């Protein structure tokens, strides 16, 4: 047998970062099958199927919109209907929160598979994030339709939307691999996560406009990676002016969160099989 055979080395150090990345490309088919599985399992034997995924951003937007439409925390200084204003923040937010929520348990709930077979580990949370982004498409559609019905014209600036959504997905993924890895070590995280997400939601200008925050404290919003995404979406959809400074600090915060997630994941990925 003269053919060239792929040689792999197993040692304590493990493969380098580049060959790990190459492996993810090799296993892209697995990502696809996991996403299909996730969607099938989630919606099989339901009558409404994927329509349920629309409820997540839509229902809170309608309820909160009805409750708070006349109160002060509305879209101060803009003519956007409050429910629509809410929805424009809730669509990216509910994507992030449902992605992080399901991805954070990806290692623990698939522990059985992790301890029996090797594949690049981050595929599991990636599959949860991709699944969430499929559901996200529905939310986006509702948002866009509503925006157009409300009389906002399609503008060139809308081309920014995919960029924000990709950032949104990447942020969700990198945070998730960190949280999912930590969750293997400290199972408390799974329990604490709903509360943390709740706090994070109120810390994001979804229900309110940043203009409601006193000028002195407004920079604090920039520490939140979701601020840039939510404000960016609103700015291009409704033509609300975009606070560049807030956007840049928020992007930096997102970068820092992503790096933290990657570092945690890289540290823990090889011990996972022994800890789950």
């Amino acid at each position: 047998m003269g053919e060239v055979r792929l040689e792999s080395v197993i040692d304590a150090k493990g493969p380098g970062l580049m060959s790990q990345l190459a492996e993810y490309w090799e296993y892209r088919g697995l990502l696809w099958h996991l996403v299909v599985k996730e969607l099938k399992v989630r919606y099989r034997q339901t009558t409404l199927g994927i329509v349920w995924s629309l409820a997540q951003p839509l229902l809170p937007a309608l309820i909160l919109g009805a409750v708070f439409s006349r109160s002060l925390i509305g879209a101060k200084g803009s003519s956007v209907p409050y429910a629509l204003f809410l929805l424009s923040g809730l669509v990216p937010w509910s994507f992030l929160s449902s992605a992080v929520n399901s991805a954070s348990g990806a290692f623990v709930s698939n522990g059985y598979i992790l301890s029996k077979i090797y594949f690049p580990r981050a595929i599991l949370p990636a599959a949860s994030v991709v699944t969430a982004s499929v559901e996200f498409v529905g939310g986006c559609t509702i948002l866009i339709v509503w925006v157009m019905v409300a009389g906002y014209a399609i503008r060139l600036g809308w081309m920014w939307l995919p960029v924000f959504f990709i950032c949104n997905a990447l942020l969700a993924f990198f945070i998730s691999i960190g949280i999912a890895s930590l969750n293997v070590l400290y199972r408390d995280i799974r329990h604490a996560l709903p509360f943390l997400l709740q706090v994070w939601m109120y810390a994001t200008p979804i229900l309110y406009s940043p203009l409601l925050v006193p000028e002195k404290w407004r920079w604090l919003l920039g520490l939140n990676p979701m601020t840039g995404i939510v404000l960016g979406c609103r700015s291009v959809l409704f033509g609300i002016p975009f606070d560049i400074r807030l956007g840049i600090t928020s992007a930096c915060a997102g970068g820092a969160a992503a790096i933290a997630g990657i570092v945690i994941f890289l540290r823990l990925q090889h011990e996972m099989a022994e800890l789950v």
Partner: protein
Amino acid sequence: MTLMSVKGLTKQYPLMSRSEEKGTFLALDHVSFELSAGEVLGILGSNGAGKSTLLKILSRVIRPTSGRAVLRGRVGSLLEVGVGFHPDLTGRENVYLSATILGLKSSEIRRCFDEIVDFSGVEAFLDSPVRVYSSGMYMRLAFAVAAHLQPDILLVDEVLAVGDAEFQKKCLERLRKLGSDGQGVVFVSHNTVAIARLCNRAVLLDHGKLVSEGAVGDVMATYLLGDTACAGERFWASHADAPGDHVARLIRIRVCDGSGETRTNVSVDESFDIDMEFEVFAGDVILFPSVTINNEWGTAVLWSTDSGTPSHGRPRQRGFYCASVRIPGDLLAEGTMTITAAMTSLAPKRDHFSAPDAVRFLVTEGVDGSTSRGVYTDYINAVVRPKLDWSVRYDPACPLLD
């Protein structure tokens, strides 16, 4: 060609006691071996010997603490059947999902999909969720997927512990085929019969250390018979311990081949000798030295005494005797055998000594077609396995009915 070389592989675990580290535990301790193309390597060892740890490291599920393994070619691992199956997905969907998890590409799965379904024999239920499958169907489908991995190196752990006889047979045949196709297989099992049939070579692990390596028969004998003094040979150095009375005493009993070498294992088609050395103290007794071979269920397979020798049936002179009996090949079945050596006189019947299970040895059998089982791979429930003359006459039409 070497497919895999393992050097000094070590896995250390901290020993925890109330979440404080209390020393360490070596699950694998500097294990080294090689696997060549076309070789089926068995890994033997009792529970906790480190077999599964070794396989998990080789399949990259966990990392070694130190040491190194180089693997050439595509590695398939089968640490469990049905990994990645989801009860709510249909058989078809599960085939795709689990095959991708095992490392197959979608195009490869499509190519061998029909073959997988054929092998599993569950066509009719392919579009039902696997939660409605019987456990047998589930197993068959899961293994069918795994069996169609086309790796250069296949790592298999205890897969045969599950499933019925039919299923186990299929597994074994599939693994054997891989070996004969020039791939390498590393096979961990408690099923020593399966290991003996499948493997060319074996290694024995004990508390994380590799204690024996070589031909499967030798390693298996070391494993099954242990380090006990009764593997292949037993010798009583002092009068005090030896079985016997004032008439006769047993000195040594052993299993040996034609060249006089002591053997702990023999092939099923190989003839061998049982040597029995004894001393006689009383010169006027008619003594019958005998051996009984017992199989692992305690059934006495054969009994034999020294009939046909000049001293048979006559009073023996005082002194030292070595009685040797040739056991022909193609007589015993495979398994662990024990020999009982006895010395009896009649009228009145008295056992001067009887050493039950004095010696243990192993009879091994391959499935290369040269033994009486031919290429039949299944378990044979018979006490002896003689090679008999068969003749088969063939007629396309039955001549008894016109």
